[in-house]
């Protein structure tokens, strides 16, 4: 299972590396969202600094949606889905590989966005440990749930509109938890953030387990 996961993740990351979609389109989009927030809110009164945590995670979710659409659009074309099914790889491995690749892409995005909020919003982080752990755990949850819904919506003509509708309400607890935890890492007391990290970890664990068990039968349909 883990070997298969590495194979799939390697394939997806290679694809991303060669096509440069994440770095050339999704990352600039994420920065654009940060700038749009500055237009929507008043940049001079410190609102941006105070709202950094929430804006950061909303930007992550929106650009993450793009990354998810992309990784499953790749599989939808040219009968790749049948190819995946016939490859003999363990479906649980395919799930872990896909989710892992997405998680890595999202982490890269988060680094870009993190630099963005530090530079443009003037935010300063107090606890780097909490920050990094929150990012990793929240991203795992987003990638796992996203991969599940991604494959579910992949074969459909309405996938671009359906995926956000299905996925964003599911991810509401992640947005909440990650935002509160980030707030604690930014300006609050770091110890306030750790219970949220536990919640995020529980979310990630549930959806990773669900994915490992259910991905095979979701991949079968077309």
């Amino acid at each position: 299972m883990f070997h298969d996961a590495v194979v799939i993740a390697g394939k997806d990351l290679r694809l991303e590396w060669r096509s440069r979609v994440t770095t050339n389109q999704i990352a600039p989009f994420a920065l654009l969202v940060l700038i749009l927030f500055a237009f929507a809110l008043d940049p001079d009164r410190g609102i941006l600094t105070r709202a950094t945590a929430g804006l950061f995670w909303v930007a992550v979710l929106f650009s993450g949606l793009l990354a998810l659409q992309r990784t499953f659009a790749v599989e939808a074309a040219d009968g790749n889905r049948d190819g995946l099914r016939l490859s003999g790889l363990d479906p649980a491995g395919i799930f872990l590989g896909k989710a892992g690749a997405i998680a890595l892409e999202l982490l890269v995005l988060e680094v870009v966005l993190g630099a963005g909020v530090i530079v443009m919003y003037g935010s300063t982080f107090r606890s780097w440990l909490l920050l990094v752990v929150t990012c990793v755990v929240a991203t795992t949850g987003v990638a796992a749930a996203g991969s599940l819904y991604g494959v579910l919506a992949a074969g459909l003509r309405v996938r671009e509109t359906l995926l956000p509708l299905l996925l964003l309400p599911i991810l509401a607890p992640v947005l909440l938890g990650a935002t509160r935890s980030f707030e604690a890492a930014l300006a609050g007391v770091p110890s306030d953030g750790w219970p949220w990290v536990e919640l995020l970890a529980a979310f990630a664990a549930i959806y990773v387990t669900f994915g490992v068990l259910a991905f095979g039968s979701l991949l079968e349909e077309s």
Partner: protein
Amino acid sequence: MVPEHTGSRATRIVGLLTLIGLVSVLVLGLVVTAPDEIQGDAARLIYVHVPVAIVMNVGFFVTALGSAMWLWKKSRWWDTIAVASAEIGVVFTALALATGMVWGRPTWGVYWTWDARLTSTALLLLLYLGYLVVRRLPSDAEVRNRRSAFVALLAFVDVPIVYYSVSWWRSLHQTATLSINTHIHGLMLFTLMLSMVVFLLAYAWMLTHRFRLAWLEEETESQGLEVAISERRAEAGVS
């Protein structure tokens, strides 16, 4: 042969009982019971709001149960139960939100507050709207059933996490939320209990009709092709 309507003796009896029950709840709730000491007439909404919220919960629970059972037994019966119940659940979620807002305006002064229960109910509505959308996507029956069963279960798993996280979020910010007074007068309690029973009857009535309707829809769909072929044949005079 396909029956022409979804009623039967049993549904007619349940329907009649529901109707009688609704009228008695109306009379008891609006006329017989006294207004609340603190909230006045606004408190009468409890006779509708709480039963509606209970039907919402029952509806989504049955959907999750039906979806899980479909994955296990692969029987069309369970799938149809799941979708019929989800539709009713969505309607009652919207009703619960609406009646809650109507009550909130005179009591809290606002239609909406970011209370844990309100927020998670709004998310619940959106989760199951997604389910209904997935349900309506055209595809093979088996594929559609599996897809919607997974969506229903994923949503169901999410519900406690949403509720937990949202209530935790709010409890960090505001200490006390309004709670309905715990002492309920005898007649009020009776009205509330009666209303719950009546609304559950209404749910059962709707579920049966919706179930039969969905069942018939699929029957007509599968028969549609055969009928069309034989009609064309008759037109052409081929026997």
